[in-house]
């Protein structure tokens, strides 16, 4: 409208505002709201919005929020397709219209600036900007800026939401904090619906643009946002809306549970379609069975992702097991060579990973079937006991009953611990390197490893290993309590029982090193 004039004002205000920007800002908001004459002072407010100072920016954000939501409520903003600002000056319009168009342009400027501020250095500014944008969104929902064609469109500030989502899914910045703040708004069903739509579109765009290359920060942001989505579990739970649609509410897609599910599923699939960084696989798999699979309309679509994850190996495979199990168990999925792959997952590192408890819980489930072939169970038992030679005591306490349970379930595996027919000593026929459990000759072998572990230093392990000396009892040992045993818990067991007498060393200690059985003193000295 009048750029020269506004710049003059800016200079003046910048001089004045050093003292009390707060007062200035508030005054300006008041004056703009009071009369149309002062409309140009909006420029000053927008100027404040760009400030690097946290307090000024905060103040400006709040002021702008108040100003524009008031203007929106008054209907002072131009509704409908917005003409270019330059055109307005030339076109034949009333002054009123011109004023409105001007305000609408400032409103758009303000939104742009707020989106910019979501990348501000100070978290409060980010947060305030986000809240303000969502406030605009809700006000816009009530006082739509589009002219509604009655049959097709529903009044929802889709563009605004889309912009916010795109800003949050930054490719260069970790937005975890602001996303967790955003979770509050995701409680509203329509917001959630449109956010999911926006994510889907945005992910597709970005990944296409980058040709599917791994983008850790972006994908991490997407994951954080997606994992923050709490899906409703029933149709009736869809009651919390930001924008009410009046009569045609029931036809609205955002009000349909089925649609929610569909969009949720599409969004996840879109996200998982592209290659993910290794840690992301773990994160996704950890929450997969609890928060993703139940809310999908067609869970079997996840099979591609799960198979891919399962083939990666290591901890990721372990985690993929859980999802696969749900698909196989509840959705009748056929998975070829499942047990063979499971068998090959057994590696020394399995006892040292974080997901040990989950893996053995599942392995226990998979191997609980009594219809498994004997060679397979024998192979598992033998391999596990071979691996037990490198396991820490916390794992062994659980593993030894696990192996015994296997033998209990499959009595024909008893030959592993009791082979009275053979007389001559022999080499271990078991082949550790063989990948096929059918070919590894486990059934011809014996569990000498457990015999070895009877000599383990920890009394609980040694006792558990001694179980194979006698015929096993009929009842299975419950290992669920032992799954997540930690070293300290194991230690506490010993501390709780205080014996009446504490045996002492009878060799008299005279020095720190150089005792009768000292090893430390041979290699180290007291310095």
């Amino acid at each position: 409208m009048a750029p020269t004039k506004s710049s003059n004002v800016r200079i003046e205000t910048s001089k004045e505002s050093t003292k009390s920007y707060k007062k200035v800002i508030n005054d300006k908001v008041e004056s703009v709201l009071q009369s149309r004459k002062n409309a140009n002072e909006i420029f000053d407010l927008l100027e404040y919005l760009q400030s690097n100072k946290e307090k000024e920016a905060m103040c400006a954000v709040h002021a702008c929020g108040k100003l524009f939501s008031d203007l929106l409520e008054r209907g002072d903003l131009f509704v409908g397709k917005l003409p270019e600002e330059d055109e307005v000056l030339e076109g034949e319009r009333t002054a009123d219209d011109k004023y409105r168009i001007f305000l609408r342009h400032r409103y758009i400027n303000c939104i742009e600036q707020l989106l910019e501020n979501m990348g501000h250095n100070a978290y409060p500014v980010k947060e305030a900007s986000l809240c303000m944008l969502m406030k605009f969104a809700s006000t816009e929902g009530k006082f739509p800026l589009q002219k509604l064609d009655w049959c097709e469109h529903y009044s929802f500030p889709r563009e605004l939401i889309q912009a916010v989502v795109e800003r949050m899914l930054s490719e260069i910045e970790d937005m975890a904090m602001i996303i967790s703040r955003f979770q509050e708004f995701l409680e509203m069903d329509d917001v959630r619906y449109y956010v999911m739509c926006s994510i889907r579109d945005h992910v597709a765009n970005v990944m296409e643009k980058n040709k599917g290359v791994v983008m850790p920060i972006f994908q991490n942001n997407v994951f954080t946002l997606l994992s923050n989505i709490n899906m409703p579990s029933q149709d009736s739970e869809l009651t919390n809306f930001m924008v009410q649609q009046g009569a045609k509410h029931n036809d609205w897609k955002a009000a349909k549970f089925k649609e929610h599910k569909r969009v949720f599923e599409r969004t996840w699939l879109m996200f998982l379609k592209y290659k993910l960084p290794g840690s992301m696989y773990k994160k996704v798999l950890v929450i997969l069975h609890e928060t993703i699979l139940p809310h999908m309309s067609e869970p079997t679509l996840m099979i591609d992702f799960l198979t891919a994850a399962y083939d990666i190996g290591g901890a990721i495979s372990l985690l993929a097991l859980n999802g696969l199990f749900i698909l196989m168990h509840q959705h009748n999925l056929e998975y070829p060579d499942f047990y063979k792959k499971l068998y090959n997952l057994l590696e020394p590192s399995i006892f040292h990973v974080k997901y040990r408890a989950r893996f053995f819980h599942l392995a226990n489930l998979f191997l609980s079937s009594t219809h498994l072939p004997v060679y397979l169970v024998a192979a598992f038992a033998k391999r596990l006991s071979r691996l037990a030679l490198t396991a820490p005591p916390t794992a062994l306490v659980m593993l030894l009953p696990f192996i015994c349970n296997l033998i209990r379930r499959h009595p024909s595996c008893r030959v592993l611990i009791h082979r009275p027919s053979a007389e001559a000593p022999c080499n271990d026929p078991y082949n550790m390197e063989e990948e096929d459990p059918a070919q590894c000759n486990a059934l011809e072998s014996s569990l000498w490893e457990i015999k070895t572990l009877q000599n383990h230093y920890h009394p609980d392990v040694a006792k558990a290993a001694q179980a194979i000396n006698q015929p096993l009892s009929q009842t299975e040992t419950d290992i669920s309590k032992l799954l997540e045993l930690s070293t300290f818990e194991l230690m506490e067991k010993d501390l709780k029982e205080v014996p009446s007498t504490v045996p002492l060393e009878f060799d008299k200690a005279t020095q720190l090193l150089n005792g009768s059985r000292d090893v430390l003193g041979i290699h180290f000295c007291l310095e």
Partner: protein
Amino acid sequence: MGKQQKKKNVADKVRKTKTSTEIKNNPFEVKINKKKFDILGRKTKHDVGLPGVSRSKAINKRKNTLLKEYKQKGKANKFIDRRFGEYDTKMAPEDKILQRFSLERQRTLEKKDIYNLNEDEELTHYGQSLAEMEKLNDIVDSDSDSEEKGLLSAELTASHFGGGGGLLRKKSPGEKEDEGSQKAKSRQELIEELIIKSKQEKRERQTQKEEAHVLTEKLDQEWKSIQGLLSHKGSKAQSQDQTEKPKLDDYDMMVRELGFEMKAQPSEKLKSEEELAREGRERLHILEADRLRRMKGDLEEGPKKKTVHFSADDLNDGFILDKEDKKMLAYQDGKWSVEEEEEKEGESEEEVEECEEEDDGDDDGDDDSGNDEDEDDSKEDAHSDLESEQGSAEEEELDKDEEEFPTASAPRPLSEEERKAQQEIAKAELPYTFKAPESTEELKSMLQGHFPEKQRLILDRTLKSNHPSLGVGNKLKLQKMFGFLLEYMGELASSKPPELNTVNILIPQLYGLSQLFPAAACKAMQTLLTDSAHDIEETVEVTGRAAFPGLDVLIYLKITALLFPTSDFRHPVTTPAFLCISQALTKCPLTCLQDVTCGLVLCCLALEYVALSQRLCPEVINFLLGVLHLAVPDKTNLGYSVVSPFKQVGRFGELLVLSSPEAPEGWSRKALPLSATQGLQLHSHLETNHYRLSLLDTCLDLVKKFAVLYKDIPSFFHIFQPIRAALKHLPLKNYPSTLQECHREVLEALPETPAEQLPLVFEKKKPIPLKLLTPKIVEVLDYGKKRGNTKEQREQERLKHKYKKEFKGALREIRKDTRFLAQEKLSDVMRRDSERKRKVKELLGSLSTQEGEWKSLKKMKRK
């Protein structure tokens, strides 16, 4: 009570009157119960009976009890004697009367009815006061004895109709007057009177006693004065007790000494060196057997013997011996008191010196026992040497031992001269008694700033002056002190640079304390170890990784191995300690050479822990493999895999790879400093490489030792197979020759092919024996009596029998009672009938006489 008395009276009467010899001898009264057989030796009670007597007894009894009850039947009223103290035999009759009187007074004084306002008013009759009238009456009454007045005199009637005077009238006039005067006395006054009375009595008794005492004393003195004259001989002992106590005869002393010597325990024969050695060996054998039993686990937990550790006694007994010695010394000096015990507490120089001297005295004996063990050790090591050499040589060796281990026996570890020298130095500075510290800080302030040797001395003295046998609270203090000492050691170890020498020197004291208080030592060590384990676990949970434990924890673990048996199957301290090691070896990633050092120290400790029991420790093998892996330069195509905390390929994967090929120059094998686990500073590349070589050397040696240790376990090959693979990947040509040699030895110790093994078979079970069906034999002791099999049955039988008897007896009694009652009733009825008959007869008689008279009158008239 009354009933019983009556019964007794009746019985007495019966006895007195009828059971006299007269009756017994009366053949008509006596009934002889006939016996079927005469049995020798059986005493019979009932061969002669007096049926008449007993029947009359029974009847009398019934008359007194049953009949009375029968007569009282249906009668609700009865007399109850409520006189105060009537049945209290303990009360004297005077007291009774007094009490009754006071009660009576009380009753009259009490206001019966608070609403009856007129109670206090004087009662009148015909306008005259009743009291006045009573007085008059009294006069009349007293006069009435003369019976001169008519029966219905005016006064008498007046008094009679006055009513209520009956009670008063009964009393004699004297009493009345008394009552009048007593009325003024309140209850309080009465009580006061009583009190005064009793006090007076008491005083009297006291004076009597005193008088008696004075008299006896006087008598005694008189007796003594005479006694001296009488004779000296007989009464000597008595007189000595009272008069001549302080003087002591030579003879008396001798007698006493003899008496004490008799009481003294016979000491054991002085043993020759061989005997001592043999005993020591036997003791060690026993201890070793005990250790083996515990190592095998809880197989025989039931008959768990209380383990006796003789070595612990050394310190313990030392102090008790001290005490005894002091007494003995005192006797020899001719002193009588036992003051020495208090002297310990005293702080004056002289007293302390005395103590020290005495300590010296018994040190010799103690040293012998203390050195036994050292000697045993050496004997076990080189037994043949010892045997070839003779006594003098042995003594030399003894001395040598002492010099070698200056801290050999806990409380007195130094040779004579050294000790004396030290004492003199110490006298200048150190006090001789120390208060037991109440906190670690106190202990620290006590010890810090002294030389290690002096710290040991201070500790020693603290222990001595607070020995549990010297005071009640000392035990607790010393128990706490173990914990403080441990903490102090931890602080020493974690200070920079670590003062490990001090820790080293204080070890014997710690050992001694632990032997004194095993439970406290166990507790203190447990807390320290679990704290560190907990810390590691928490950091692992939060960050996923944790730093290796500090040198203090390593020292604690080492001390654990020194104080507690590591070979036990399950031990409250060593099992958690082992878990600590395992946790550190699996959870702490290696980021620098310092961590590798720390890990290797832990491996050494683990080896010490399992050296005797030969138990398997997979984590250590994994760790050693990982360390070897760190030295492999080319990480491709390995043929083995490492586990946590190592990574197959990673940032810190080449910590031990030599940076330059000329590294081995100038490297020689030497012990690494323990302080390297805390702040390792390597200045040049060469130094770093040398350090790496040292670490590798240590690692290879440990592998060798573990290989030797585990060579008999079934999966030996599979356990060491990855290590074997890793050894082949080491860049041997860069290593010095000693290391290459070591490497070769290790490879030789590890087999190339797995050993052949027998397949597993269950342990053979003992066949379950058949059920044996031996007949049950019951002893039959006496044929005549009813017999049950067991004691309980017999008892039951007896009770049943008794019950039956009692039941029959009761029935019989009841029957007799009813018969008696019926008889009574009948006689009653008869009596009444006869009375009636008599009366009817009388009436009829009188009527007939009347009739007769009337007829005779009629006849007369007619005439």
